[in-house]
């Protein structure tokens, strides 16, 4: 993440690709930076809102990174945070308006959590840590990467919670009726937020046991 790149580098150079793909693995915002946990608990009871939330956050991180990176040389340092907030809040309101217009039922389900994307630490974290010091293109990639890295966790948790909590996926019954007749019951605990936290814990555990360099001494 050096600041001064003099010669033109290719669009998909190794370094740019790294900022796109790192968030999926060694630098995942949820698993490694432990950011954005709040919404990971709140919107993952079902798969559909989790996917919409993931996409919404990806749009916001991508564009807030891009816009802040374009503005980075003109922003007065003293009001830097306020400018970031205005840009992020604007993007979130835009996303909210589009959801209300095109996927109304999902926006009702996500209710306040769309507005709360503003407070998702991942977004401001990436703007502060990356976009303000990098060119627009790598910043956009970093934003997309982090949004999707966050979304990946949301989708995994949403998948597990909906499947075992209500026997459905995307609202359709997937666990066949004969399972219930043979004594299978849905796990009610899956529908409660603490279970999401436990699942995040499991995923962190798996990830750290596979990546030795993430383990604290």
């Amino acid at each position: 993440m050096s600041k001064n790149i003099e010669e033109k580098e290719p669009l998909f150079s190794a370094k740019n690709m790294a900022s796109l793909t790192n968030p999926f693995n060694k630098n995942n915002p949820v698993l490694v930076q432990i950011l954005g946990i709040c919404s990971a608990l709140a919107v993952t009871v079902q798969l559909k809102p989790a996917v919409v939330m993931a996409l919404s956050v990806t749009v916001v991180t991508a564009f807030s990174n891009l816009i802040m990176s374009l503005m980075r040389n003109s922003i007065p340092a003293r009001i830097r945070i306020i400018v970031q907030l205005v840009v992020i809040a604007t993007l979130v309101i835009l996303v909210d308006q589009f959801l209300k217009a095109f996927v109304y039922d999902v926006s009702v389900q996500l209710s306040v959590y769309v507005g709360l994307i503003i407070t998702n630490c991942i977004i401001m974290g990436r703007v502060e840590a990356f976009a303000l010091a990098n060119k627009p293109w790598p910043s956009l990639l970093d934003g997309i990467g982090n949004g999707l890295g966050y979304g990946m966790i949301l989708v995994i948790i949403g998948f597990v919670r909906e499947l075992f909590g209500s026997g459905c996926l995307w609202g359709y019954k997937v666990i066949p009726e004969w399972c219930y007749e043979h004594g299978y019951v849905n796990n009610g605990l899956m529908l409660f937020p603490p279970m999401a936290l436990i699942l995040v814990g499991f995923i962190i555990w798996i990830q750290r046991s596979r990546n030795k360099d993430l383990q604290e001494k």
Partner: protein
Amino acid sequence: MNKNSNTYIIIYTVVMVVLVAVLLSVTALSLQPLQKENELGAKKTAILEAMGAQEADYASVVKAYAVDAEGNTIEGVTADDALQMLFGLKGAFDAGTYPVFENVENGYVVVPLTGKGLWDDIWGYIALDKDKNTIKGIVLDHAGETPGLGAEIKTDKFEGSFVGKTIYEGSDLVSIEIVKGGAPEGAPHAIDALSGATKTVQGVQAMLKTCLSYYDAFFKSKVAPAEEVETECNTENTESNE
């Protein structure tokens, strides 16, 4: 120009705020028709759900009109106007116009409800049988009641407990009483309260009382001819007693 001078900062913020304001208002205005359409769809679904006719097509099943305080149909109010009243229901009630949604197939009438819960607005739709007395269904919703407590008013369990209850005792509108600690077995005008949601439930009770009273004259005037009501009532009652 010095990026940290006050002039630069002030100009910067003003330009930024104006740009953002223009962008947001243009988007909000251009998406408004679509959003309104969606809200209207949600209201139609709720009305059908109250009637127990989720699968039905709104346009072919529901006849919408508005009545005045004397229970007379107001001339010149179209079905669309009646639906639009739902967007400012409090104002419509204050103006003395009361929208009614009638199921043309079985004669159920749905009237809208609006009130206050503990934290924010609550609203709903209640369906009455054609005797204008027996509750056939209710849909309740809220803007911000506590999840797990007040928010439980929108669960099927609570909404289901209204079904079969009656709102008239003789010719007095008694509405529905929501009893803390449990309604007596077989009480015709009472249902069980929700534990931990006293204030919200009181809001629901007050909302029912107030909103149904607006329609009192309409309910009495529109009752079908006497003999027919008698038989209808009896069959309905035996059914619900079963």
